[in-house]
């Protein structure tokens, strides 16, 4: 058993390492360090921060007022004055894309974060809780999913009036069942496993089992799902805005840029390209980020231990 012997200095260092590893700041710093080491993670981080920073500092970066009209210069292709051309009312598309990012990120990030949180909680409860709770939560999920999103949105808008928060509300309510179902199925599979039985045998409390043992095992898949949902949410926002249920003109959003461009596709393709580009960058960025984070959170996929 020579492999079992080692010097005491090493072991003290190992034990100190365990104590250090458990602080929140250390986990964050450690995650960041691992993220930038992965090519995919670094790429995701760069793409996401580009989008986030340009949206945050839109008022500084944007060369024009996003709602200022210039009818004489309508539907122009990209030029040195208008980097991404102009739309049917002569507004500068580049400035509109920058400002549109604010709405897009506000809607997409907040609604997905909320849907993820609620979906996770309800899914864990349904998967690990008593049978009646599972049935109740699933029935609720099915009821929500049985409404077409647009019809559901129309009903909500009639009650609350069109606004950004209405869009967020609609997206959150219709996405919770998607996350919830994924979490529930995984939780049920985990609940059968011996390590959960072992925790129960030790008298571990339900919150402890759910949040310390189940959660880390289901979060990876959810991150991927959530990153791939971002473009879907942005298109839902665009669709609702198109129906006049969401963002009201002339406030720019990526959705409304694409929609406007669609009406004038015979005249120029540039508005659609300009509106679609940030959508692609955002989706790629968050997918890369989500995938890298999943690998980092899963010790089996983490190669450098």
């Amino acid at each position: 058993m020579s492999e079992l012997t080692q010097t005491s200095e090493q072991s003290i260092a190992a034990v100190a390492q365990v104590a250090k590893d458990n602080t929140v700041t250390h986990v964050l710093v450690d995650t960041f360090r691992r993220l930038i080491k992965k090519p995919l993670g670094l790429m995701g981080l760069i793409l996401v921060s580009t989008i986030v920073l340009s949206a945050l500092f839109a008022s500084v970066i944007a060369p024009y007022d996003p709602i200022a009209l210039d009818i004489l210069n309508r539907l122009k292709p990209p030029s040195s004055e208008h980097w991404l051309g102009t739309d049917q009312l002569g507004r500068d598309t580049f400035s509109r894309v920058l400002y549109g990012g604010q709405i897009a990120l506000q809607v997409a990030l907040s609604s997905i974060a909320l849907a993820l949180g609620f979906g996770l909680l309800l899914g864990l409860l349904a998967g690990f809780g008593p049978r009646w709770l599972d049935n109740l939560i699933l029935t609720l999920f099915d009821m929500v999913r049985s409404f077409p999103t647009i019809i559901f949105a129309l009903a909500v808008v009639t009650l609350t009036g069109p606004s950004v928060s209405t869009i967020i509300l609609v997206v959150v309510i219709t996405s919770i069942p998607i996350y919830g179902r994924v979490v529930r199925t995984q939780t049920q599979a985990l609940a059968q496993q011996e390590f959960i039985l072992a925790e129960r045998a030790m008298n571990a409390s339900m919150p402890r089992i759910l949040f310390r043992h189940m959660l880390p095992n289901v979060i990876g898949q959810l991150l991927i799902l959530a990153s791939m949902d971002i473009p879907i949410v942005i298109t839902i926002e665009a669709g609702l805005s198109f129906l006049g249920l969401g963002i009201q003109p002339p406030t720019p959003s990526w959705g409304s840029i694409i929609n406007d461009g669609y009406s004038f596709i015979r005249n120029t393709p540039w508005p659609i390209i300009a509106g679609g580009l940030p959508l692609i960058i955002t989706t790629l960025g968050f997918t890369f980020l989500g995938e890298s984070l999943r690998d980092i959170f899963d010790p089996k996929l983490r190669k450098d231990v």
Partner: protein
Amino acid sequence: MTIQTTHSSNSPAAQQPAMPVENIIAIKDLSVKFEVAGGFVFGLKNVNVSVPRGQIIGIVGESGSGKSTLIYTLTQLMAENAVIDSGSADMDGEDLLAKTPRQMQQLLGQDIAMIFQDPMTSLNPVFSIEKQMTDIQYRLNLSYSEKKQRAIDALTRVGIPNPELRLPRFPHEFSGGQLQRICIAMALMAKPKLLIADEPTTALDASLEVQIIDLLKELQAEIGCSMIFVSHHLGVVGTLCDYTVVMYHGDVVEQGPTVDVFNNPQHAYTQRLLACDPARIKEPTKRLPTMSSEGTEHIAIPSGSYLASQLTEQNTHPENSAEHLLDIDELRIRFPIQSKLAALISGNKDPYLHAVKGVSLTLDAGETLAIVGESGSGKTTVAQAILGLNQPWSGKIHFQGKELLSMEAKARGKTRRDIAMMFQDPISSLSPRMKIADLITEPLVIHGLPFDSRAQEAKRLLGMVGLPLDFANRYPHQLSGGQARRVGVARALAQSPKLIVADEPTAGLDVSVQGEILNLLNQLQEDLNIAILIITHNLNIVRHVADRTLIMNMGDIVEQGETQGIFANPQHSYTKQLLAANVHPDPV
């Protein structure tokens, strides 16, 4: 190597004893390494093994010794990160390692057939046996009814009753033993030249093990194929194989005719391996020899740990002798197999599976009781009832004088501080996203017990069970079975329980690690006066470690008493049958 025809008189080679042995497989200087982060790990180091035509060769070794790597290299089924460093593996003069995947496809299932460890998962669950058995005959130019008839004949040969009726059934409708028979039938239908069996009896009960081995031996002689039989069970290899290859850390340390290897082992590792086999130790002993020692070393309870603080207290408070630590009275457990409404409609008055039918037992502090039975006997169900993991239907469980089943959930939870369970699968019973340090100290946190720091406590516990301290930072999937078992012991002992329920504590371990784990439990039992309830089907270890033994069959206790008495003079016919099924450790 000269041929020794000990008992395979049917094989072609045996008819010409003067001829030199013809090898079907000749592995020369085979080295395989695995690519890991920051370098390579050797899986096989210059392995030279020959498989004589028509003979059975057994490969033994502990987990990680390279025996699986060897057979998966032969069949090109290696893990993606495996790299063949050097060497060749000739089958009938052609190098298997040089074959393209397409050529390999021609060979596998035709000239080379395989039987895997777990019959439950090696068949596709969504297709019927008929579909799977006719499908593998795709190479033959036969009509469907002819293929079906061949499948029926094969099933008849391996002893599946009513094959015509059973053929359209699905894998989950068969028992484990029957499934392994079906796998054997499928493997042998093509009349392969070489059969590779990877631990084919490990997932089966002892009595089934004997039947499967007899079947394999019969069929091998009938077809005249060669066989590579991989196992960590020395008894099985001794009974079945003509030749034995002993592997250790990727090296072949010894090979030769089985009788010679078993009776006159040359290499120190083989000698120790044989000495460690509890089945070969005639006199019952609580201290089993291990690879590194004779089992006499003393493990120190680390000072300053929570365990140490309990050590003095427990020794000054002897148990009240009039009262048993654990007293189970007429425990009955049943599981519904039909909903109440469905049962009412179909008129089924007893829609339950009676898993435990009135079990009574007692256990005192410092005592070891073994519950022995085959899978499905209800032994694990009893253990889980003590821990409150299922709802007994009737009966009483007294622990330290208190009745557990009528307790409120909260009070019941508190009793769990004094009862710990070691689960059957050491790795999957550890939460996969947590570090070992957190896992082994978790019981202390859950029960709110005093300890100075998690890191310190983890260090002491790891030291006690003989694991290096940097394991504190590892995750469960980075451990071997034996290491995970030690973590399981540390975790069970952390809270200083009065009773440890150990479900198959030696499952999947090779003999020397078995001895280490059992010695560890035994010594801590002596130091801390812990009662141990061992649930197992491994009779060889029960004979050594248990004070009393209880034999269960189909939810009933058929016999109980002092272990030595039961082994020397079994009363019940089932016990006799069980003891007879225990594979004899020496070659015939």
